[in-house]
Structure formats: C-alpha cells, structure tokens
C-alpha cells in the first residue's frame, strides 16, 4: 500500500470538471479531488445525493464505457492528485495509515459464499477493477479458480465443478451481477458481495448494455 501511492494514477485524464466521466462519479463539489476515488468528505456528505446520482448515471452508462480504460488504477490509497503535474509524496501529509483507512472504511464489504460458514471482508477500493477484485476473491477463497466466459467471469470450485457467480447487493437492496456497471459506480454502490451458485443466479437483475463492463 505504501510505495504504490506515488505516481500510479499519473496517467489519469480525469480531475477537474467538464469531463463526462467525472459526471458519473459520485464526487461532488471539491474541484480537483477527482483522483482515483471520491474524497472521504464527499462520500460522507453527499450520501443522499449519491443515491440520486447513481440513478442518473445509470442512464448515461454508455458514456462511461468509453472511459472505462482509466478505471484500472493501482491499489491507491487516497492518492488524489491535485493537478496533473504534482506527484503524491509518500507519507505526506503525515496522516496515520490507520486514519486514512478508517475514513474510507465504508468501502469494505462482506463477502459470503453460498454453502461456506464464514465471511470475509474485502476493501473494494484496494482494487483497480473487476479483474483484480476477482483475483482477490480467488485468493481469499482459495479453493476457487476463475473461469472466463465471453461476457462475464465466474468462480469455479474445482472439486465438484460448481460454478459461482459473483453478485452484490447495492444500496437499493437489489442483488445484481458483478460486472454490470462501471467499476467506480460499483465500488460506490456495493454493500456486500455474495458468491452465488450460478444455478441460483438465473433470476438476477437484468444486465446493462455491454459497453459498460470493464476490464
């Protein structure tokens, strides 16, 4: 977490206003706080607005597809770049790691696996995109391997061949398939994850147009 703070988001084109992608972000208000994630205060203060914005953004899903390439941030912990020229300095300002983590702790979500008695937690923000998240889940529940389908990914228990589909509960309480919405939107709206047996997942919420799925 530490040394990756420097510079890994340096190629990101976003930040201050005007960019279409920024509009689908949940950040409001703070110019220049665009970085890899909305700032803590935005998330806290703008909670009510965030839900509303989510709906709005969902209908503009096509826009984000074009910009999905910049969603693959490294595991950045709060390295919001104030301007394109400035690199984030490691360990400055001297805010304790615990504090930084605590203020963004709302991105930790529980992961449940159908049939397993234990829960794990994963920090969505620590991953740059769906690939990394799935890799992390694979590691966490090490019995699984990832199987790639043309339009989605599934986790497979090699022992009995059962397929699990990663699903999540969003802020509205609906269960959705992981991978349907742009990564940032997913991070912001996901309340918890559930690896559902694919036989049970048939009736899940319909998926978004394909342009929105990220790498």
């Amino acid at each position, binding site marked *: *977490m*530490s*040394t990756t*703070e420097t510079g890994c988001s340096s190629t990101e084109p976003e930040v201050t206003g005007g960019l279409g992608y920024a509009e689908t972000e949940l950040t409001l*208000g*703070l*110019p*220049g*706080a665009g*970085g890899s994630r909305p*700032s*803590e*205060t935005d998330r*806290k*203060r703008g909670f009510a607005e965030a839900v509303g914005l989510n709906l709005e953004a969902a209908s503009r899903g096509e826009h984000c597809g074009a910009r999905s390439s910049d969603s693959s941030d490294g595991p950045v912990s*709060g*390295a*919001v*770049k*104030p*301007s394109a020229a400035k690199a*984030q*300095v*490691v*360990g*400055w*300002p*001297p*805010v*304790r*790691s*615990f*504090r*930084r983590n*605590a*203020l963004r*702790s*709302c991105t*930790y979500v529980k992961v449940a696996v159908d049939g397993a008695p*234990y*829960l794990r*937690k994963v920090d969505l923000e620590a991953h740059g995109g769906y690939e990394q998240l799935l890799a992390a889940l694979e590691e966490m529940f090490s019995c699984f391997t990832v199987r790639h389908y043309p339009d989605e990914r599934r986790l497979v228990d090699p022992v009995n061949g059962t397929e699990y589909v990663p699903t999540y509960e969003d802020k509205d309480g609906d269960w959705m398939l992981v991978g349907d919405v742009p990564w940032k939107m997913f991070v912001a709206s996901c309340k918890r994850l559930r690896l559902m047996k694919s036989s049970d997942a048939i009736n899940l919420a319909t998926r978004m147009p394909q342009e929105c799925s990220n790498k």
Partner: protein
Amino acid sequence: MVRGFGWAAAFPDEVWEHVFSFLAADADRNAVALVCRAWHRIERRSRRRVFVGNCYAVAPAAAVRRFPEVRAAAIKGKPHFADFNLVPTDWGGGAEAWVEAMAEGWPHLEELRLKRMVVSDDCLELIARSFKNFGVLSLVSCDGFSTAGLAAIAANCRNLRELDLHENEVEDNCLNWISHFPESFTSLVSLNIACLEGDVNTSVLECLISRCPNLRTLRLNHAMPLEKLVSLLQRAPQLMDLGTSKFSADHHPELFFKLESTFAGFKHLKSLSGIWEAGPAYLPAIYSVCESLTSLNLCYATIQSPELFKLVSRCKNLQRLWVMDLIEDNGLIAVAASCKLLQELRVFPSDPYGVAPPISLTEHGLVAISAGCLMLHSVLYFCRQMTNAALLTIANNRPNLTCFRLCIIEPHTPDYISQEPLDAGFSAIVESCKDLRRLSLSGLLTDRVFKSIGASANRLEMLSVAFAGDSDAGLHYILSGCKNLRKLEIRDCPFGDKALLDNASKLETMRSLWMSSCSVTLGACRQLALKMPRLNVEVIDERRGRPLESWPDDFPVEKLYIYRTVAGPRSDTPPCVWTV
C-alpha cells in the same frame, strides 16, 4: 565512588525498598541504582515498572534478568515514521522475543503495553497462558494479529481488567471472539475495540457488560447500528469514557428519544469519542452530557460546522478536544470563547489530498485558541496557510506550550502574506515556550530556524522535520544544541554526512535518529558505525538486491535509522535492512 555507605547497611532492605517506592520516574530510579551496590541490588529487585522506548535497545533476556519483579512493562517498536508508511512493513519490531523472555522471567506480569510492534496470534496466546494474574493488555498501532488471538486472551485471562486496542490493523477471522469471555468473567474495567472492523455480536457484548459492574471505559467500533448501541448503553450507565459506534441512521423520533434518555442517564461521563458518520439528526441527543465532558474526540466524525459548533460550544469543561478541520475558524473562535479549560487541541485534515479546500480553517483559528484558552499546552494543527505574525502571536500568548505540532499541508509553503520563510515564527515559538518538549515543523524553512531551535529549545525531547533547511548547518545546529533531545526524525531535507559525523557522540545521548530522503552517503554511515560501537546504524533500501558490502562509499542512503543499544546489531533484520 564511596564503597557501600556504612549507614545504608544499618537499615534492612525493606526500608530502602519502601523509600524507593516513592520514586515514580525511571530516571530517578536509575540514579538511585548508581549510588552503591546495595542500592543497585535493592532497586533492581523492587522495580515494578519498566519502559523500553526502543525494543532493540536492550536484549529482552537482559531486561528480565536485571529486574526480576516487574509487574508492568511498556515496549515500543517501530520508528514513529512507520505511521506514515515510510518504514518497510517487514522492518522488524516483532514482539515474540520480548513475550517469550517475559513469559519465562516475569510470571507475575500484570500489565503489558506494546506500541508499533508486530504481535502475532501466537504471542497473544503465549501472553494468555503465561501470566496468571494478567490484568492489562494495551496494543497501540500494532499489527500481525487477528481476532483469533483476542479470543485466546478473552478465554484465558481470568482477571483481565483492561483490553485496549488502539488503532491496530487486526484481521477479522474469529467473528465471535467476545463470546470467549467465560460466564464467570466479571473483572472488566476498560474495553476499547474501536479499531476492529468486524461486527461484534451485540447480545454477547450486552451480557458481558451487564456482568462487569466495574466497567468504566467502553469504546466500540463503528460497525454497530445505532439501535443496538442504545440498548447496549442502557446496561452501563456508570460509564466514564464512551466511544460510540456509528452515529447515524434513518431518523426515527423514537430512536432519538431513547438515545437522548440513555445519554441523560450517564451521570459520570467525562470522555466521549467515536461518533462515526454522525448525522445532524442524532447529535442533539448528546447535549445532556456536554457540560461534564473533559475530553471530546470527534476526529472521525465528519460533522459539518453548524452542528459541530453547537455541540462543542456546550462543552464548557473541555480539557481535550480532537476535531476535524470541518470546525473551521469560526468554530475555533467559538471554542476559544466557551472552552476556557482547554489544554489540548488537535485539528485533523478532513481532506488531506485535496487541492482547493472549501474548508475555511486558517491560522486565525489557532491564534484565537491561543488567546482564549489560557491553559492550552498541547497543539496538533493541520492547515494550509500560516504567517510569521500568527506564530509570533501564538508564542506570546502561550509560553506554556509543551507540545507544538504544526502541519502546513503543502511542503515549502511560505508565509502567505510576506512570502518569507517561517523561520521567524517558529523561532518565536522555541524562544518563548521554554518548556517545549515536542515540536513538529512545516512550511518553508531555512537553516536559520534550526539555529534558534538548537540555541533555545533546551527542554525539547522530540523534533520532527520535513522539507526544510538549506544545508548541513541545519542539522549541525540541532545536534550540537538541544541538550535534552531524545528523538529526531527528518525527511526530505538537504542534511548530510558532515553534520552527522561531527556530532556522532550526540547520537548516543538520544534514543534514535531517523533520516530519509536526505543527503547521507554510505561512507558516512560506515564511519559512524566504526566510531560509535554502541549505535546500531541501519541502512534501509528497498530497491537493491546486492549486499551492502559491495556498494561504494558515495552510495546515497535512502533511509537511515540510528539508535543506541546495548544489545549489539539485531539478528532479525529483513532483506531491505542492513546494520552497518
């Protein structure tokens, strides 16, 4: 030295022991131990508390051997800058060596406090099994353990009074660890689990609280919903120190009423913290306890200014206030008017990495506090602008400051009005505040400020420097002055070999020196290590794989950690650390 005062022998040892028991300070006990052999022997057998500021300064076995009757130990591990990710995660600070030695030599140990150490579950299990009368476990900024380790503590420490987990990274793999406290367990006085991320079983916790009548401190983690918090708190109206969980929920008048009456039932509450994610709807429920609070910690509460202001200005007896910069200058001006007993203020940044803050927190807030709060002695302040004039005013207002830590968020920021460096301002602080023990600098600073610090900061024990100074002279001023300096930590300053070598012997009078991204070469480190055998000179470099011996003298050292030790080079250095 006179050999064995005759009159000393006239009193039995127990008399001297009793006399020595009035000496609380380690420094005094150390002095006593040097008087004569008899006193050395008596003192060491009667010392009950040991503080080890650097876990590598002495071998655990040696410490345990010297003081066989210790009941309370406090040990610190990693350098302070580990808090800001400057120290590699595998650097060291493991607790095993100490816990094993203590398990062997101090079976009657009752209290253990560890800070910035790597504590494994095995360590926790060993602690749980080894000390029959174990009462206090405090882990601050530690990592390496999980809730399974905590379960072992809960299950085995029958007389546990205090479990204090402060800002640790704890893996959550044992969801019901709290249920490991046996039904017969009733001795809890203080429980701080604020740093745990997982859900805690509320009904189990309620049972625990109900059967521990001496419970005075309870700090919960943010996971517990507000409704459950209320029913829990109703079991513990005797609390003096409360850390709440999440303080927001959909607004239900009934819940608000219950919360309000629960707080009204706290007749002894002095300290309040937590209040995570506080929504304005529920804050007024706290108002009834405000007047009796002496300590209020809102540093994780993203409450906006009007509500924040309303809350804090009711706390007329506040001595300690930790808050986010969301309080803004206006809020601090109100605090200065209402909280006349304030001694310690910490203002944390709500958005440390943003660039155009909408937060109106400037030097004016701090100046107002310094003028209105006559008992203020400890300050931690994050802001984005400062002037020499403001610092001068603060220095003149508050010569009683003992701790002054100012962090101007952007490095090299000058006085924003005059565009001058902030040398004059910080000089005024050290010249006026004669009892200053801790100082953190920031902003644009030249060597001049170090000259003042070296000359005037006679009581200074800890100094933190970043992005400051012009040349080696800066470091030289510090090391050749500051008589009482114990800890010095420096990053990104143009300080190099000469100052270090010219002041080598100073380093043995200090606990430790950290330098990173400065201008020190490997050659100087080698010379220093040769000259000073009782220093460990650790060069930390995460980039290269080749061993230290093969690098030339002019190789620039990225990170350097020097500390005095009687234990010699440590044996647990990871690949990125070399003891020169």
